[in-house]
C-alpha cells in the first residue's frame, strides 16, 4: 500500500512549507509540493496550507493569496470534502477564501508573539484531530502578529453551538474571542489553526515535546483507513 499523499502549498512568501512537509513524512505520509500558480492538485488525499507571510501580507493577511490560481481548486476540492488544514497564514487564507468564517486581526498586545502555548483540543470529530481525546491539553508553539480571532456574535454562537471550535488557548495570548485558537467548517473537513503543530513533531527541534504530531497522524490514519 502506498503512503497517503498530503499536498503542501507554497505561495510566494510561504515560510513553513519545509516544516509541514517534514511533519507529514514524519507521520508516515508522502508530502506533495504544490505551487500557487498551478491549477493541479496532483490527486492528493489531503491539503496543508502552511504559515508564512504570503505576498508579504502587505495587504490584509491572506487577502491576495486567496486569488492564486491554485486556490480555485482548493475551494472546489474542499467543497467536495477533501480534508484541508491551514495553519497561521494558511488559516488566514482559508478565512479570506470563505472556507472558514471570521477573520484574524492584529494581536491584542500589538506585538508578534512566539511562544510554546498551552492549548486544549475541544473537538476530535475532524480528520485532523481524531487521534486526540476531547479535552486533551497540549503544548504547541504559536508565532504570529495577527492571530486574534474575531467574528460576528452570531457566528461565534453558531461555532460554539455546532461544536466547531477545534482548539482553544489556555492563557489567551492574543485576545481571540472565546480563546479560539482553531475552528472547523460545518462539514468538519476544513480546519484552521493559529498554532503550528509542524513545530512540535520531534524532541530534538522546535517547541518542547511532540504534541503536534497528532494532527498529522490523525489525517494519515484516516486516509489509510478510508
Amino acid at each position: 500500500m502506498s503512503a497517503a499523499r498530503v499536498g503542501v502549498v507554497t505561495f510566494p512568501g510561504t515560510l513553513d512549507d519545509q516544516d509541514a512537509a517534514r511533519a507529514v513524512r514524519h507521520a508516515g505520509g508522502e508530502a506533495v509540493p504544490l505551487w500557487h500558480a498551478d491549477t493541479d492538485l496532483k490527486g492528493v488525499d489531503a491539503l496543508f496550507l502552511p504559515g508564512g507571510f504570503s505576498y508579504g501580507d502587505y495587504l490584509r493577511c491572506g487577502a491576495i493569496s486567496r486569488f492564486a490560481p491554485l486556490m480555485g481548486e482548493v475551494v472546489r476540492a474542499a467543497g467536495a470534502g477533501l480534508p484541508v488544514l491551514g495553519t497561521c497564514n494558511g488559516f488566514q487564507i482559508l478565512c479570506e477564501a470563505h472556507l472558514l468564517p471570521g477573520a484574524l486581526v492584529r494581536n491584542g498586545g500589538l506585538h508578534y508573539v512566539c511562544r510554546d502555548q498551552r492549548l486544549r483540543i475541544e473537538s476530535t470529530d475532524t480528520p485532523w484531530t481524531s487521534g486526540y481525546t476531547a479535552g486533551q491539553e497540549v503544548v504547541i508553539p504559536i508565532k504570529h502578529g495577527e492571530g486574534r480571532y474575531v467574528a460576528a456574535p452570531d457566528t461565534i454562537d453558531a461555532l460554539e453551538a455546532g461544536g466547531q471550535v477545534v482548539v482553544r488557548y489556555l492563557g489567551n495570548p492574543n485576545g481571540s474571542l472565546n480563546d479560539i485558537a482553531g475552528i472547523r467548517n460545518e462539514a468538519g473537513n476544513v480546519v484552521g489553526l493559529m498554532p503550528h503543530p509542524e513545530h512540535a513533531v520531534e524532541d530534538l527541534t522546535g517547541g518542547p515535546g511532540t504534541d503536534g504530531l497528532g494532527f498529522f497522524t490523525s489525517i494519515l490514519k484516516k486516509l489509510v483507513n478510508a
Partner: protein
Amino acid sequence: MIDSVSRAEQTPGERLPYVELGMKDEEYQRVRDILGRRPTSSELAIYSVMWSEHCSYKSSKVHLRQFGTKAPKSEALLVGMGENAGVVDIGDGWAATFKIESHNHPSYVEPHQGAATGVGGIVRDIMSMGARPVAVMDALRFGAADAPDTRRVLPGVVEGISSYGNCLGLPNIGGELAFDPCYIGNPLVNALCVGLLRKDQIKLATAPGPGNKVVLFGALTGPDGIGGASVLASATFEDGSETKRPSVQVGDPFMEKLLIECCLELFQADVVVGIQDLGAAGVSCATTELAANGTGGMDVQLDLVPLRDPTLRPEEILMSESQERMMAVVTPADIPAFLEICAKWDIPATVIGEVTDTKRLVMTWHGETIVDLPPGTAANEGPVYERPFHEPEGQSALNADDPARLARPDDLRATLLRLLGSPNLASKEWVTGQYDRYVRGNTVLAQPADAGVLRVSEVMPGATETNRGIALATDGNGRYARLDPYAGAQLALAESYRNVAVTGARPLAVTNCLNFGSPEDPEVMWQFAEAVRGLADACKALGVPVTGGNVSFYNQTGAAPIHPTPVVGVLGVLEDVRRRVPSGFTGLGERVVLLGETADEFGGSQWAQVDHDHLGGLPPAVNLEAERALATVLVEAATRGLLTGSHDLSDGGLAIAIAEACLANDVGCVVTLPGDDAFTDLFSESASRALVTVVPESFHAFAELCSVHEVPCSTLGVTGGSSLVVEGVLDIPLPELRQTHESPLPALFG
C-alpha cells in the same frame, strides 16, 4: 546636463563638491592623478563612497591585517577574510558561512527600518556566498534602560528585526541585549547571519570571462540612502532635482524571501559565474568589486538599471542603497535559463552590462561615457591611514580605581535578586518572544540558551543527510573593554567560545563587529588598536581564525565615544547534534558541578554597576590555556553523553548562572559554596568557568576527564526542590526568582 568624460576633459577647472562628499584634498588629488583629469560627477560618486571609512576600512586596515598574519592554522577555513563572508568546513561535505555586521547609525535615526535593513543586508552577504541563509541573531546595545530615548529606539529596533526577520522566514536563535548610558546617542545594532552550503558550491564575488553578462536582479532602484548624491546633484546641476531624500533605506522582506529562493534555484541550476549583493555603495560597490576581482574590466549601460523613480540621475543610481538587490555574472548561454528562474519568482532581472578585458570599468548614460576608471583603484586601492594613537588620559587612574574599595553587601539574597532584576541580567523574553525561533524546523537550541544550535538538515534539495549541527554565539562587554581593550576583546572571544562549547560544539571560527568611537581621536584609535591586537592574539591561542567581520567607527556623540565594544561571534560544530547539552537544570538529584577557578574579580562587574554605578580597576584575568582546556572538557563530556546541563558563567557570576539554570525548567537546587567568601563565590566574574550537571553514575568518569585536562572541578550540590538554596546563605522560592527575572523588561517597554 550630464557630466560626461569628454565634458570633464573640456572643463578641467570645474570644482566638484568632494569635501561635501567627505573626501580630503589629498584623496581628491589622488583621484585626479589616477584618471589624469578631473573625475566626472559619477566617478566622484563612486570614489567617494568606495573610499569612505565604511567601505574602504582606511583607518582600520593596518590593524586588521593581524587577523591574517596571526591567524592560527585551520584546516576548516575554506574562504577567509575579504569575501562577502568567510566559509568553514563543518564536515560530511557541508560548509557554513557566517558574518556579523553593524547597522548602528541608521538604527538610531530610524530604529525600525535601520534594524530591519541591517538584517536584510547581512542575509544577502550570506546568500552571495552560494549558501542558504538558515538563521540570524542580533547583538543589541542601548542607553540606560529607563532613559526616554531608549524607549524610542529599543522597541523600534526590536520591531524592525522582528518584522523583517519573521517575514523572511529565518529563525532568530540568540544574540545579546545590554544597556549602558554610554550607548544613549549611539545604540549598537549588530546583525549576524549564518548560511549552509555544500563545500563544492561556494560562489565568489568575481566577474571573469570577457563577454559574460552582468545582470542586476531584485528590487528596483530608488532614491534610498543617497544623502551624499543630492550634494552632487545640487552642486553640479541647476534644475532643482535635489529634493529631500530619505537617508535611511526601507526594507521589503517579502522581496528578500523571494530573492533567497530565487538565488538558490539559480545556484542549483548552475547558471551563476560570480555574484555580489548590493549593500552600502550599491551599484558602485558591486560593479567595481566584481570587475576588480575578475578579468578586470566591465562595460555597464547605466541607463538600463530599472528604476522605481524615473527621475534619478546617474550619480544617484550609483550611490543608491535600495535594498534587496543582487548582481550576477552569467554566461550568454545561461542568460535565458537565468531570466526564466527570476521570472518564476517574480523577480525583475535586467542585463545591464558585460565583462571585458580592458581593465577599465566603463559606464554609459544614453550613449555618453560617464565613467571610465580602473576598477581596482576604487575597490581595493583606497587610501590607507596610519592614524596616531595613544593611551587615553586618565586610563591609569581608571585602572587604579579598584572595586576593592566598594562596600560589599551583607544580605546576599537581596543582592542576588537586585542583580537578577537589573535590566542587563533580567530575562530578555520580551525581546526574543517577538522573534520566530522555530521556522524551517531545525532549531535545536535558541535564546535563552548560551548559544543557538541548528540541525544541518534539508538545506538543499537532494543533499545528503547528516546528524551534524552548528552552534553560534555572540558576546561583547564594553565595560571590560573600556578598562582594558586588549583584555576586553579577548574576554569577548573567550565568552563566545565558551558559550559555543557548553552546548557540546567544538568552536571552529570567528566573526567580529568592532564598534568604536571616532578613529580621528587618538584615544579611541588606541582602544581600537589594542582590541584588535588582543583579539588576534587570542584567536591564535584558541586556534580559531577570524573569517570576516565589520568595523563601525564614529559611534560617538560630541567628544564622548561609546565604550570600545568589540562583539565577537563564534561558530562551532557538533558531530552529532542529538548530543547537544541544554543550558539549564533538567533532572532531579543530579550533581551540580562548578568548573574553573574563582578569584576576587569585580572590575567592570555587574555588581559594581548595579550596586555602585562604578567602573574601574581591571577586568577579570584572561587565561586562554584554561579556556581551551575547559572547552575540551565540555565538548568531550557532551560527546560521551556525560552532561545533562551546561551553562556558562559570565555577567553576574555563579549566582546568576545558578538562577538561570533553575528557571530554565523550574528545577531548584541545594548547593554549598566552595570558598570562604560567599560574596566572591557568588558574584565574582572570573573567566573560564562553567556550571554543569552530571547524573551520579557519570560523575566518576567526568571527574577523571576534568583531571586529565587539569580543569578544576568542585561539586556544589544537587538539583531538585522548588527553591534555589545556597546552604547557610540564601533560600529563594522559584516563583519569586521568576517574577524578579521576568518582570523588568515588560515593565519598562510594555
